């Protein structure tokens, strides 16, 4: 049987790099085919070839649709051939309604006028088909990211797309939204749609995919049937080397001793905290109490919108108005936090959105590394640039940032290396308490391991780490204790020996009492 889509010996060169080398790839109708690989392995480049962003003629090799050589000169050509790409940067217009977005650029018409009735009727039909209970007139801007992604899929399907390419669709979704998406994708597969699925989350890949192709350094390494693949095997192909335990949380004697020593005086103590977005509004966080000691990793989990990011941002002083409650940092009350003061007192935050909140992209690695701690390098009113350089180099090397030097601009680094710079900037402030918000989002397996190693090192040095993560296995692997947040309240607290995916998830969904009973 001819495959629906076939890539033969695709090679794509950029000045100085070979992004793809002789990649072979086939996709059959009614198949979900996962693409796995570290950042920079060539997944995005391959998608860009398939979707016509890199036009025919800019690469070597052949692209075939239904067995015939396809020459895409732009996204529209690929769209006409039935290929739709849904990326992390969603192409929806927030101000327009769901219906308008679905029919963007091709509204049903009656003569010269847009036929609004018909548009809303058909949109409602499509949404119902997809099991989405949403009014078609609703502005897309009011939807969460999960729903937005589904709207894009609805749009792609209505355009009679036969091939759906999903690039990291689950990165911004909660577990329940991922489950819903999975259900939809399985239904589409049964109806004969071919799906290319790209995700860093291997458990998802294994739950969905019929076949898995691993890319490494621009080459297609192997294509496996799901039955013959295992997670360790795929990871080994991705990194080209064996990886040890995926979540190497160590409670060493050093970190345990530090925790014991600070047991009576936790580094950070929060009592009955209530926080509103701004003064006078209803609190978004309520009744939050916890303590974290030196050498400990406290994990925060919860569904999207549970208030995890808001909690970290508030403790750091970058969000919200404290309605009530007390925070003690290293034994001192800390009633009115702000980022500068937090850093001086030894509390630092590495934000989840590194491009928006973490980095000055236009500047060098060194500029970013020392930005939060310039005060340490000032002598007689001026920055001692030699001392700064040496201080940065220590971090640059210990974090193993992959770049030719600290003068390289941050915007050109891969996601994992950018994340290392964000972490380095936080560590440069010599903190006592480190708040990490989704430190491994969108980075590859190798870089993830290095982040886990770093967390271990921090606790051994007697620091306290507060970790927010959407991935339960990661949260369970790295934390000593986990607090699940549910709609701004604590849904449950779990010690390491009580960790269990179902119980944690139940706590996140407010069913702790039920499952405990």
């Amino acid at each position, binding site marked *: 049987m001819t495959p629906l889509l076939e890539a033969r010996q695709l090679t794509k060169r950029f000045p100085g790099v070979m992004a793809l080398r002789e990649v072979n790839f086939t996709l059959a109708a009614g198949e979900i085919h996962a693409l796995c690989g570290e950042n920079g392995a060539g997944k995005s480049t391959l998608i860009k070839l398939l979707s016509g962003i890199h036009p025919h003629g800019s690469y070597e090799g052949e692209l075939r649709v239904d067995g015939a050589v396809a020459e895409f000169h732009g996204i529209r050509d690929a769209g006409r051939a039935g290929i739709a790409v849904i990326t992390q940067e969603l192409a929806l217009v927030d101000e327009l309604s769901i219906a308008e977005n679905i029919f963007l650029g091709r509204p049903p018409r009656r003569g010269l006028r847009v036929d609004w009735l018909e548009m809303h009727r058909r949109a409602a039909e499509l949404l119902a088909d997809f099991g989405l209970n949403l009014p078609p007139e609703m502005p897309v801007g009011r939807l969460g990211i999960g729903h937005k992604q589904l709207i894009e899929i609805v749009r792609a399907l209505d355009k009679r797309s036969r091939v759906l390419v999903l690039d990291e669709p689950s990165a911004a979704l909660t577990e329940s939204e991922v489950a819903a998406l999975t259900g939809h994708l399985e239904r589409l597969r049964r109806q004969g749609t071919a799906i290319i699925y790209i995700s860093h989350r291997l458990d998802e890949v294994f739950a969905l995919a019929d076949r898995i192709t691993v890319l490494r350094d621009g080459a297609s390494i192997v294509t496996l049937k799901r039955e013959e693949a295992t997670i360790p095997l795929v990871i080994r192909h991705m990194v080209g080397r064996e990886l040890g335990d995926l979540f190497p949380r160590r409670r060493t004697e050093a970190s345990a001793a530090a925790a014991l020593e600070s047991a009576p005086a936790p580094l950070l103590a929060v009592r009955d905290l209530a926080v509103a977005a701004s003064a006078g509004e209803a609190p978004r966080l309520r009744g939050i109490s916890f303590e974290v000691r030196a050498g400990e990793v406290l994990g925060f989990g919860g569904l999207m919108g549970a208030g995890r990011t808001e909690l970290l941002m508030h403790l*750091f002083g970058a969000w919200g108005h404290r309605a009530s409650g007390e925070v003690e940092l290293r034994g001192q009350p800390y009633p009115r936090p702000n*980022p500068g003061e937090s850093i001086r007192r030894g509390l630092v935050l590495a934000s989840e959105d590194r491009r*928006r909140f*973490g980095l000055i*992209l236009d500047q060098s690695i060194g500029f970013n590394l020392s930005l939060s701690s310039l005060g340490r390098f000032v002598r007689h009113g001026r*920055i001692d640039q*030699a001392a700064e350089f040496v201080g940065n180099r220590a971090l640059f090397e210990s974090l193993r940032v992959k770049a030719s030097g600290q003068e390289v601009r941050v915007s050109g680094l891969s996601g994992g290396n950018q994340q290392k710079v964000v972490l380095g900037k936080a560590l440069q*402030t010599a903190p006592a308490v480190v708040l990490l918000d989704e430190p491994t989002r969108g980075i590859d397996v190798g870089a993830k391991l290095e982040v886990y190693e770093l967390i271990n090192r921090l606790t051994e040095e007697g620091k306290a780490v507060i970790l927010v993560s959407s991935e339960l296995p990661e949260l369970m692997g790295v934390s000593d204790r986990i607090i699940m947040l549910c709609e701004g309240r604590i849904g449950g607290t779990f010690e390491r020996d009580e960790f269990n995916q179902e119980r944690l998830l139940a706590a996140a969904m407010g069913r702790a009492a039920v499952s405990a009973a």
Partner: protein
Amino acid sequence: MITRPSLQKLALPLALLAVGGFFAWQEPAYFGSRNLTQLIVEFSMTGTLALGMFMILLTGQIDLSVGSGVGLIGGVAAVLVFQHDWPAPAALLAAFAAALVLWTAMGTLIVRQRIPSFIITLGGLLIFKGLFWLVIQNSTIPVARGDRDNLYSLLTTYYVPPAVGLALGAVLIAGLGLMLGRARSHRRAHGLPVSKSVWAAGRFVLVAGVVLFAIVRLNAFRGVPLSLLILGGTAAVVYFLTQHTPFGRYLYAIGGNEEAAALSGIAVSRVLIGAYVLMGVAVALTGFMTTAYSGASTTTVGDLMELDAIAACVIGGTALRGGRGSVGGVLLGALIMTALLNGMTLLAVSPEIKFIARGVVLTLAVWMDVSFGRARN
């Protein structure tokens, strides 16, 4: 690894050469020592204002009020000297304080009330213009009484004795050489790439030559003007602030990504207000020089100078969206702008055409900034 100067870095000197060459060809008196002296005085004014604007633009903000401010602050000092018989230093100090108050207020309004700087300073442009004309009663107020020189009038009429001028030039060149050499050896000591010695030496000799040539030509008229030393001092301070202090780093960081800067613990509001206060300082200095240069405060002093300052910055590679630019670039941009305006005046180009030429240069510079910004992303 950069071992050769890129075309982009050569673009500014080449543009300057082209402008200079064109006017010298049209009118040989262009490089005559009298005109060169005038050009340098005008450059000092545009350059000082542009250096203030540079720090505002670095943060991604803008200030449209500085042209009116130049007139107002110069006018206040002139009225105090001429109508109230204040000693010049006291009058300058009072006007200087007024500038600080006004720009602190504007900066605070922009930061605390979160009103776009474009709107606040557009309001400032009109309000300061009105205040200016009120202060000088729509008339012409000389900067000195009778023929007696005072500190105010001397700002643009005092020239450093030739020997002192040469000595200053020598000190400048020696200092520059020392700085460059130390920077290179530091970079080498840390294993960083340095440009080839030939290029570095060549560039240094070229700069030294231009400085010496300029001093000799200036000495052939009356010497190095005091206003150039004011610009030099301002440039040194701005260079130190932007390249060697946390405040300067923060200007770049805020312009690059304000949210990330705030989360890095930078007191964004304070830094922004600081930039506006420094803008006030530059406005006061420029106001005094510009008013002294025209001999009296009249309603047209400072007209459109905000646009020349912005154009100088953008020509010199300062990004309008913030986060990128250098002092050297701003100075070169200001020199190009001044060379153009001065040349057109010398050729007696009509004011209509001068307006159009200024507009074309500003538009071209911004267009280049925008397309360059796109190429980087």
